């Protein structure tokens, strides 16, 4: 007689608490989600390195990595990415939302590969299975660090550490890229410059990012009128 009644009264209470302990909601599973996402993003950088497509980031940030691949040094991409990773891990655990853009797309996807490439450690980026594995392991570590900091500082801190300021500055610098591409295209050759001007103007009128129009315009004109002496 006693037993069924006990079960009935306890069940709704248990469900309420347990939902946050199940796989899909729990803290312990968080590193797994980060690992899967990180594996994908890191392999996206592999795709960029090998096929020149598919990096999970904005043109401005990918261009930093490209500057390194072209022999200009990986310092900027590594420092930029690593500092974002550092700041976002801290912020993510404090505010309860890990910023994918700063921590994983820029930090893990650009900063870490730049560090590896600058050290001559190319295998994790050139080899697809290894890229998946590297991304997953690093993501798992990031996830565990976040959960650990969260446990360690729970209820202690209510600062976002100026994340809004950095985000604002990041967005503001992204806006510079459009005009810069047009300037750079105009110095490359006259047809490429004209193409980028037309593309930028059209995209502006269509309310699309000027940088995208400038690149596409430069590409189309550059394909018809190649830059003298430059390209193989």
């Amino acid at each position, binding site marked *: 007689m006693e037993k069924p009644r006990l079960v009935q009264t306890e069940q709704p209470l248990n469900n309420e608490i347990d939902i*946050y302990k199940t796989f899909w909601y*729990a803290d312990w599973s*968080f590193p797994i*989600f980060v690992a*899967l*996402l990180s*594996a*994908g*993003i890191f*392999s*996206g950088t592999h795709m960029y390195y090998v*096929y020149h*497509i*598919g990096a*999970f980031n904005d*043109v*401005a940030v*990918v*261009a930093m990595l*490209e*500057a390194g691949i*072209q022999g200009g*040094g990986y*310092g900027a991409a590594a*420092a930029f990415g690593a*500092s974002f990773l*550092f*700041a976002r891990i*801290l912020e*993510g655990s404090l505010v*309860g*939302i*890990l*910023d*994918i853009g700063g921590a994983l797309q820029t930090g893990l996807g650009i900063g870490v590969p730049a560090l590896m490439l600058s050290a001559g450690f190319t295998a994790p980026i050139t080899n697809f299975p290894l890229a*998946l594995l590297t991304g997953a392991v690093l993501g798992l570590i990031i996830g565990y660090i976040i959960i650990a900091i969260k446990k360690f*500082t729970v209820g202690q*801190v209510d*600062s*976002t550490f*100026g994340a809004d*300021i950095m985000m*604002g*500055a990041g967005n*503001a*610098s992204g806006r510079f*890229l459009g005009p*810069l*591409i047009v*300037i*750079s295209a105009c110095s*490359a050759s006259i047809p*490429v410059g004209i193409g980028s001007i037309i593309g930028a103007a059209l995209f502006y009128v269509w309310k*699309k*990012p000027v*940088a*995208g129009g400038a*690149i596409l315009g*430069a*590409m189309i004109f550059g394909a018809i009128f190649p830059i003298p002496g430059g390209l193989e």
Partner: protein
Amino acid sequence: MEIIEILLKSIIIGGLVGFGVGAGAARMFHTPKVQGMGAFRTLGELNACAGDSVSHFSFGLGFFFNAWASAVGAGAFTQDVDHRIIPNWAASFLLRKGKKPEDTLHNPKKMAIMGAIVGVIVVGFLNTTSSAIPESMQAIAVKVLVPAANLLINPIMPVIFWLAALDAGKRSGMWGTVLGGAAHLVMGNAVPGIVLGILIGKGVDDSGWNKLTKTLLTAVVILFVLSGFFRGFDINMIKGFYLDVPNWLAGLHKIFGLEVK
């Protein structure tokens, strides 16, 4: 042959990314109890669409065209694939036929599975279409893009971040200036130093010199010392002041493979 290789890799990457993004986005609705993953702006935008399937889809579509242009032009997806397209399209497909957001958008399991499906399609499409672009056209993009990016990295971004730090209050401005300048000397770019300066300045503004902000400052100092050492900054600095490099320091550098003249 290469296109099949690219497609297979893209399917794997898209599935992984979509799964993580979907689950992370749904978990954001349960913070602070649950650790979420995404961005504050993503959360805001998902809420702004108010559980309407069509709004979610068209919001994602606008960014999809940007991402496509950027992927074709420069091989860069933009951050919007993870921040906006996958979460909004996954939400849109889950919410069709007037389902409630509480049972769909806020459910990590459903969002993860739908996110993976959307991810496979989006990444597969973007990569196969942009790989079809002739290599000569990609080379032009690189030729135009790299000088522009170099200008952006130095000096434009340092200046913008620096001014933002100066505008953010006395502490951020002071720490941003000191660490930014030091970062340019040591690492060759001021941005990481300024970012760390804002981090420290704002952290102390909001919560004072507690255990966490002190740990942060210590970590920053260690970062600078190590980075300076491995880039040989200490040696260059000593030489810059016309002093003699002590033998023990030269010996220490030799252990790590840097020969001091």
